[in-house]
């Protein structure tokens, strides 16, 4: 399935030449761009600043908090978890991304949508699934003991359980970003490699993979940073990380400054990771241009069809079918689900509109940010990158508390409305939209826009007619990521929602506290279905457009 690519005149005009060296465009910020940048920095950096001020205000007390929390050990544990989870997610995400875009695997359209479904399943629900199945008294260990084994065959608790679950429910970040890059990449380069005598493997390693680098890095970054900031899943799986320690500081000591100091360490860590990502991308150019109407090459699988299918089913089984089957079992009957839906449609609506508003605002902001970062090297781009990306690393609880203090003090008319929930989503997940747009934009040659302007288009028209259509898959991916993450968000929502305003995850949490598993499972299924819906719609829209091409 090829995504819709509106091919404007400019692209056709330029289709003769394929490789163009990218010239960095350096320009002076216009007042409007500066204003926009300042607004975004104010919006995103204020909670960060608040955090650092609180951490510094803690002074020696915060320092003793840091020492008592034995930061180096925590740091090592957390980094190990995040690194292993990212590797596991790459392993789960990259092969399907290639198989589902570049081979004739039967049912690959359906698989591409199903492959994204794990994103609709909150990792804390995934964690509970695997605890039920692989826990000390789960069916797997019971069966093992029944067959005469002693002790446990598998231990789901601890580091490896955390890695397993985090990877299984975040690999779609990589599948999505690598998939859209594979879809919109230029087949001419691969053809050239084939002409030079390389086989499919050689082409993949020498051409496709290097071109995928921005998307893979962006996807890995999303997984890595998610693993750093996740709280619910890791605490269920009894893994000690930075976030569980931060929670400990807040929960038992009510030490907000200590929590801020620990979060500041997490933010600095994220900063390092981001700088590394920029460095790694910085020296190379990934510009490619789509030429003509040629879709990417599709390889016949031949005798590899069955193994490829089995692999796809295994990945989907572990990350989609298994959790959903367990939830269906726990929900008991369709009646329970409909009843939950009937009595809780207001929560569904709350979740839907807050997540949709957050995703839309994030996509617009991300286009602006990605454009500034990509087209203007310099301090503003860097500042914007830092400001929009770092929120992702702050645990939801800390971000929530920080926003409460800021908005209740300075803009009290916003505080106490559902806008705070949207803001929480936006600040936590804006990086996903920025990563999506930035990765897509880095593959678009700025000379295309210049050519458009040369042919009499205004710069706004050039952006609208040339650049946006080219990066549309990336922007769509960004919108979906923010929507999906937002609709699952729990930690910040619990704090930021006004009294009386509940979302689906809040209801799942409340049902879990009530030990009402049927309602918890029903609500989870409603949440998953709601999240899956836009995935299907967007995929249909895309295929519809590509048929028109």
């Amino acid at each position, binding site marked *: 399935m090829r995504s819709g690519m509106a091919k404007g005149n400019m692209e056709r005009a330029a289709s003769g030449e394929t490789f163009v060296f990218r010239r960095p465009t350096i320009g002076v910020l216009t007042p*409007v761009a500066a204003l926009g940048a300042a607004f975004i920095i104010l919006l995103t950096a204020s909670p960060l600043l608040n955090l650092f001020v609180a951490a510094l205000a803690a002074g020696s007390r915060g320092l003793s908090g840091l020492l*008592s929390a034995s930061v180096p050990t925590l740091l090592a544990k957390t980094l190990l978890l995040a690194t292993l989870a990212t590797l596991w997610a790459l392993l789960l995400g990259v092969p399907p991304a290639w198989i589902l875009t570049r081979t004739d695997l039967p049912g690959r359209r359906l698989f591409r949508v199903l492959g994204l479904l794990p994103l609709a399943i909150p990792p804390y629900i995934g964690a509970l699934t695997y605890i039920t199945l692989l826990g000390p008294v789960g069916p797997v260990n019971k069966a093992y003991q029944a067959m005469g084994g002693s002790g446990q065959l598998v231990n789901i608790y601890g580091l490896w359980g955390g890695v397993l679950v985090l990877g299984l429910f975040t690999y779609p970040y990589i599948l999505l970003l690598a998939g859209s890059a594979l879809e919109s990449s230029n087949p001419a380069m691969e053809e050239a490699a084939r002409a030079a005598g390389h086989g499919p493997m050689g082409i993949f390693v020498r051409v496709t993979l290097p071109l995928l680098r921005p998307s893979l890095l962006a996807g890995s970054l999303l997984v890595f940073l998610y693993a750093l900031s996740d709280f619910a899943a890791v605490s269920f799986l*009894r893994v000690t990380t930075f976030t569980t320690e931060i929670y400990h500081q807040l*929960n038992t000591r009510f030490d907000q400054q200590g929590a801020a100091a620990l979060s500041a360490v997490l933010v600095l860590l994220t900063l390092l990771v981001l700088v590394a990502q920029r460095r790694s991308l910085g020296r190379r150019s990934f510009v490619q241009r789509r030429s003509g109407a040629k879709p990417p090459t599709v390889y016949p699988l031949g005798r590899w069809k069955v193994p490829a299918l089995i692999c796809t089913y295994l990945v989907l089984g572990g990350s989609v079918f298994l959790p959903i089957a367990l939830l269906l079992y726990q929900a008991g009957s369709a009646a329970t689900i409909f009843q939950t839906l009937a009595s809780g449609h207001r929560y569904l*609506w*709350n979740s839907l509109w807050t997540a949709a508003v957050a995703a839309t605002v994030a996509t617009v902001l991300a286009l602006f940010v990605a454009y500034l970062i990509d087209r203007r090297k310099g301090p503003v781009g860097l500042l914007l990158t830092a400001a929009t990306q770092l929120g992702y690393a702050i645990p939801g609880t800390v971000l929530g508390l920080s926003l409460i203090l800021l908005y209740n003090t300075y803009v009290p008319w916003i505080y106490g409305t559902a806008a705070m929930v949207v803001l929480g989503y936006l600040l936590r997940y804006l990086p996903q939209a920025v990563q999506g747009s930035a990765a897509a934009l880095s593959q678009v040659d700025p000379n295309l826009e210049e050519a458009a302007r040369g042919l009499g288009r205004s*710069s706004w028209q050039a952006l609208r007619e040339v650049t946006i259509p080219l990066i549309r898959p990336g922007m769509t991916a960004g919108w979906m990521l923010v929507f999906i993450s937002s609709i699952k968000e729990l930690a910040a929502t619990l*704090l930021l929602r006004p*009294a009386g305003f509940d979302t689906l995850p809040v209801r799942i949490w409340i049902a879990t506290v009530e030990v009402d598993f049927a309602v918890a499972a029903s609500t989870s299924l409603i949440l998953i279905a709601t999240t899956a819906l836009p995935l299907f719609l967007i995929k249909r829209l895309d295929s519809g457009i590509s048929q028109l091409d």
Partner: protein
Amino acid sequence: MTLFFSSFRPALFCSILLIVVSASAVMPGPGGPEAGSELVIYSGRKESAIKPVVDLFERKTGAKAVLKIGKTSGLANEILQERQRPRADIFIATEAGVCEVLAREGALDPYAPAAARVIPPEYKSGRGYWTGISGRARVILYNTGLVKDGEVPSSVLALADPKWSGKMAIAGTLERTTLSWLGALVHILGEAKAKAYIAGLLRNGLKVLPDNSDVWRGVGSGEFALGLTNSPNYHLALKAGLPVGVVYPDQGPSGMGSLVNPNAVAIVKGARHLVLARRFVDFILSQEAQAILVRHAFEIPLVLGMDAGEVRPLSSFKSLKISQERLADLEERTIRLFPGF
């Protein structure tokens, strides 16, 4: 070269963007409350227990109340952050130590309801900052499939016996009821003995889990033979059809008794609806509200003479006598004494 951001249209685009962002920011959610005449209740107690009480309060008084259900600690942190412009009128906590923390931070408003006179002094603030509304006893929960009724130790101090090696679980101090239990041990045994006792339990393979539901589900499922947890969890496990029994430990003449952690209600300092808030505190201690609270969550009534239903009333067992003020004083030391617990 002409640049994108230098022409007029992007200016328009950016202005629209700003308007959209600010408009969406102030759009009130459907069902979202406006600050008005409604009593705002932050509750760490679960919805099924507190909502019927609030509904009844609304019916009886004609007043309106909005409820925000959350984690006790999260809501307490929220109240601390909101101190400059308080939003909540009432705070309902699942553990009184949290109210003590808030009181010390100056975030609560004192009020001594008339009905609190029949509540024992351990279960209300000496200065009126909070009042206990129900209690949970620290008990030993056991799996009846793995342990015979007579074998269960009658004292927590007997758990260091190698017989229980690797068979016990407790929630960590992320559960504040565990923290206050540890504090009570420090108070009764002294620092050195308490530390040695806990070290002995850990050597004996005591498993420290994230929360109490892990403990009772673990005991119920047979992952552990014994669990140190709170009394309502015994009833919850029974309700879930799990094979469990319960022991209220240390009941002998020289025993220290079983610690009872109170759930508490408090009025937030700067509450915008102070009169209504006080009426709510009075109401939650009334017979009818207490009946709902106790029946729903298998908790122990603290108002003496109240019908306890299927739960063991305060008068039927020996409780450990310690004030919440004392526990709050011990808290920092306790946390330091048991790192990583």
